[in-house]
């Protein structure tokens, strides 16, 4: 008996250690490429090399000094925000339709909403190009935003359907029974409670648009979004500016996620 118990204990400990090792290896595998970018961005040389021979902040200066970088960044932010607003608005209505009312068509609609994630982006880009060229939307920032909104839709729909399925619909019903219209009930009762999911959905949508390259290449004319500018930069000169840009992007994501976690924690504190 005793022997068996100690053997079980031993095996369990081995399993624990293996699990830890596996987790850390995965973690490093995912994170190392991101970490390597940081020293490169502070390189003193004019080529991408690791480890850098000398250190400087000149590539950050290059970024801020060149109008083409700043313009691309502003354009990406603009496209990202508009795509986020459109995809969250449409995706929320979509998720409402899937989770209630459309009992028969809900599952089919859900699959349709996920299609942009499954269709190869090159196929999507070509078809968008041929459609938008007829509508005069190629070379127009709003065209990119529109195309991005559709690419963002699956993420929004996944997050919001999950959250609406968990939400107790009786609350909305109760609000209507207490004198609210359906719209007021959704605005005052439903939305405040799924706010964490709405924020994550918006964040996912924004990131999807902000680093999207293929659609942007097809639909932007003479100008370009930040990913397109980075891509052009790699093709033409390969200097560490893109490393500097990458580091700033990573910082932005970390910042936004921190803010989101903060907001959600404040929410959880009140709700659960």
């Amino acid at each position, binding site marked *: 008996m005793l022997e068996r118990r100690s053997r079980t204990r031993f095996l369990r400990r081995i399993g624990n250690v293996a699990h830890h090792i596996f987790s850390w290896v995965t973690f490093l595998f995912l994170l190392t490429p991101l970490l390597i970018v940081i020293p490169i961005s502070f390189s003193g040389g004019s080529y991408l090399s690791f480890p850098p021979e000398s250190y400087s902040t000149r590539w950050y200066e290059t970024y801020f000094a060149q109008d083409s970088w700043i313009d691309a960044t502003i354009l990406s932010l603009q496209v990202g925000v508009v795509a986020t607003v459109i995809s969250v608005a449409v995706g929320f209505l979509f998720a409402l339709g899937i989770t209630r009312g459309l009992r028969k068509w809900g599952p089919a609609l859900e699959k349709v909403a996920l299609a942009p994630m499954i269709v190869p982006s090159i196929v999507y880009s070509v078809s968008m190009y041929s459609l938008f060229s007829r509508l005069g939307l190629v070379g127009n920032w709003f065209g990119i935003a529109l195309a991005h909104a559709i690419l963002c839709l699956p993420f929004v729909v996944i997050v919001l359907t999950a959250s609406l399925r968990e939400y*107790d619909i*009786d*609350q909305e*019903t*109760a*609000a*209507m*029974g*207490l*004198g*609210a*219209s359906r719209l*007021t009930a959704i605005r*005052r*009762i439903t939305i*405040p*409670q799924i706010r964490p999911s709405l924020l994550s959905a918006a964040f996912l949508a924004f990131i999807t648009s902000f680093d999207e390259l293929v659609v942007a290449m097809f639909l932007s004319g003479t100008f370009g979004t930040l990913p397109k500018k980075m891509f052009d930069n790699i093709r033409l000169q390969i200097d560490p500016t893109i490393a500097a840009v990458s580091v700033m992007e990573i910082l932005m994501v970390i910042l936004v996620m921190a803010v989101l976690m903060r907001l959600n924690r404040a929410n959880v504190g*009140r*709700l*659960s």
Partner: protein
Amino acid sequence: MTNENQAVLDVQKIRKTYGRVEALREIDLRVAAGEFLTLLGASGSGKTTLLRIIAGFETPDSGRVSIRGADMTWASAAERQIGMVFQNYALFPHLTVLENVMFPLEMRRITRRAAADRARAALDSVHLGVFGDRYPRQLSGGQQQRVALARAIVFEPSLLLLDEPFSALDRRLRESMQQEVKQLQSSLGLTTIFITHDQEEALVMSDRIAVMGGGAIRQIGTPAEIYYHPNSISVATFVGESNIFEGVPKGRSFYAASGAHFSLAAPTDCNRMLIRPEAITLSRASVPADPREANVFAAQVLDRSFVGGFTVYRVRLAQGDEVSVRAIAREGAIFQPGETLQLTVAPADCRPLTDRSAA
């Protein structure tokens, strides 16, 4: 139109089907001002569908719902001025208790200050005056229940609907909440429709009970009418314990299939009869009962269970029928399994079941 006796709620010929399932088949129901009416039924009996149609969360396939004489069949839930307490309370977790109770007043565009005053008064009436600033999750189940109740009555609805509100509470709390709700209801004169599957709760609280089954109202009446004069086996077995006899009526007599002879208080032509277990008396007799005599039988105790205030015996008549008997438990007057006793029942307690359509 301001007749005192006018029905607050008048439901006429309501039908509702879901696909091929007939959830409600021609429901007629009138509820008078100040009345406490219970819809009693098992799950799937249609009581929840009926409640949702009255509340305005569902629309009937045909029929009419009138509230205070106005046709409300197609009115939205918001227009109906109905207060409802949901089974899970459906309190808004992101609002404080006070904000929850203020919500219906806000929807009626009442100024914030007046709304807060009225909400506080409503919370006081359910003894939760000091909990206004808390969030619902910080309250116990019973307290959440009271908040839901305050929220449902704060805007002085013409009708209060309670959808199995006590099902999540433990027995002791449920009993005190039943009393409290009943007191509040009668002191405010609130016309109330209460839904439950618990027959005891229905008997305790209601002015009238509508027993529902299979999408129809099987019987409607006061608790005493439902208990003492059920019209069918389904009502008799749903409300209280029952012994059912099938047989042949003959004037004021009823001959069970086994041959047992009962004499009744009035002539009948029903071929089913009910005897409540507590209406039967067991005694030790010196002379054995004559098998031809009505309402007196020789019976053998099969088993017994002691339930505190009373004892439930299962006995077999000499004629073969098995009967359950509920007797007040007096120490020393407890019968043993195997003992042969005399069983008597008064003619008035042999109750014919009049409704032959519903078995």
